[in-house]
């Protein structure tokens, strides 16, 4: 663009070049400042809190750089950690299985309704996440309609518990983060040139082969982004486990939340939070490497 400006000769080319160098930084400054102050520095505060120990007064903590806090926290809470990652993985796989055909239909089969359908995917956000989770609890309850239908087909027995179970928690997680899966999948599917699919058909690939060898590989960036955007919030969630679970389905989010807001054991809460963040980052890094999509944003 600088070349065009020079050709048009509107201003001293050197001036415009100087502006060009400063411009991106000027554009970045306000947003980056916001993220440094309200995201990065709180994370650093979190790390410094995580190595504190109880002081003399009640609710008082002093900095002793006790890194053993991390080992203690892991020993005490590894069950909840593992459970969180297992639940989040299952929920992500279920969400992917539901969202892929959904996104595919919106991208290729919806015609002029495409934008309306996309809005329908996000619209449930407006009906409050917690309201919908409570709704699921009531729908799956033993006197609810789903239970009666399943009972009729002998899929459940009268003694089966659908709510207050690991099943309900995983289903709730998959449900609540479905839009985060669908939107990136749609974005990458929509970018596929329909002619590549036609070309595959012309080369005698049947519908399934075309899907497997052309559509899926081309939509991989969407699969990676969608699975991450579902897995990350699911692993740190505590609302689903609280509303749809039982004491045996406690996730790490429930522990951290309780340590912060009820027990006010800030060092333990901070240690667990930072561990959760590190674990998720490690998983994300490995996952991105494996799937070969380096540029995510």
């Amino acid at each position, binding site marked *: 663009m600088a070349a*065009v400006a020079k050709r048009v000769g509107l201003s001293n080319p050197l001036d415009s070049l100087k502006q*060009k160098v400063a411009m991106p930084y000027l554009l970045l400054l*306000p947003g980056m400042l916001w993220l440094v102050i309200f995201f990065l520095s709180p994370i650093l505060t979190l790390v410094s809190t995580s190595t504190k120990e109880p002081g003399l007064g009640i609710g008082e903590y002093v900095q002793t750089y006790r890194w053993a806090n991390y080992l203690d926290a892991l020993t005490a809470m590894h069950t909840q950690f593992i459970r969180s990652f297992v639940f989040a993985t299952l929920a992500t796989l279920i969400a992917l299985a539901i969202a892929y055909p959904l996104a595919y239909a919106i991208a290729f089969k919806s015609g002029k309704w495409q934008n309306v359908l996309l809005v329908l995917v996000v619209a449930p956000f407006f009906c409050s996440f917690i309201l919908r989770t409570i709704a699921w609890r009531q729908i799956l309850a033993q006197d609810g309609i789903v239970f009666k239908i399943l009972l009729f087909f002998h899929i459940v027995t009268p003694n089966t518990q659908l709510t207050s179970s690991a099943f309900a928690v995983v289903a709730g997680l998959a449900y609540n983060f479905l839009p985060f899966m669908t939107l990136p999948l749609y974005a990458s599917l929509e970018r596929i040139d329909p002619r590549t699919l036609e070309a595959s058909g012309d080369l005698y690939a049947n519908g399934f082969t075309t899907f497997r060898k052309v559509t899926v590989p081309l939509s991989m960036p969407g699969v990676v982004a969608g699975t991450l955007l579902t897995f990350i919030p699911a692993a740190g969630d505590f609302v689903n486990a609280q509303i749809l679970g039982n004491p045996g389905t406690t996730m790490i989010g429930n522990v951290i939340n309780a340590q912060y807001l009820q027990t006010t054991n800030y060092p333990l809460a901070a240690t667990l939070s930072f561990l959760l963040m590190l674990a998720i980052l490690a998983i994300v890094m490995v996952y991105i490497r494996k799937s070969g999509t380096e540029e995510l*944003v």
Partner: protein
Amino acid sequence: MKKFTRWFSKNFVRIYAVLGFTYLFIPILYTFVFSFNDYVRSNLVWRGFTLNNWKNPCGPLDICPALGNSIKIGLLATTGATILGTLIAFALARYAFKGRSLVNTLIFLPMATPELVLGASLLTMFLNLGFNPGFWTIVIAHVMFCISFVVVTVKARIASLDPRLEQAAMDLYANERETFRRVTLPLVAPGIAGGALLAFSLSFDDFIITNFNSGTTITFPLYVYTHAERGLPAQANVIGFSMFFLALVIVIAGQIVGRKRKVSA
């Protein structure tokens, strides 16, 4: 039978999509039905049909002020995040500069951090600084976690623009500023609108980060959460469903107006 199999395989994706949307909307249908429940104290058991909840949506104490807070916070946070995010998106999409991967990392990290960690760490910092959490700390937190989503949405739109359109404008003697204002910006506008819509929906529905940084301020999701155990009034269903319906109507109306404009232009 063979006819049916062919029809089924041809429409398989459509059928699956209908099922997917049904799954997405079952809880909303439930919310709608139970907004007409003649409830006593807690809206969990069906007791009979009434229009009272719809006639008196602000009946329960605090529920409408909570909704008002959610809307105010949503609008403020959306404005902030959309402006900051759009500027970053233009910098990333249109300029080569040093420190690019650092910027990309700082945009990506908030999305890769669970909300719980974002909310808790921000509260820790506010408390350490002696800041009382309340309305403005919620706005600050919401701007922070919405920026990245706006950047990703707007950047994708800028990247998909045909560069020849801007070249054509310059060939027709538009200077850089004019080209930006009359060609680039209108073309990027749908992406900015999409980012803003996403930011508003994330902010409006946020519970976890808000729960940490709210102090005594109540938003609609906080109201629903705190009353869920003691008995949620059916008015919460009225408001939840109305907001859902309103969002749909506004966006679909916007779509129709946009399409008409395109046709007439």
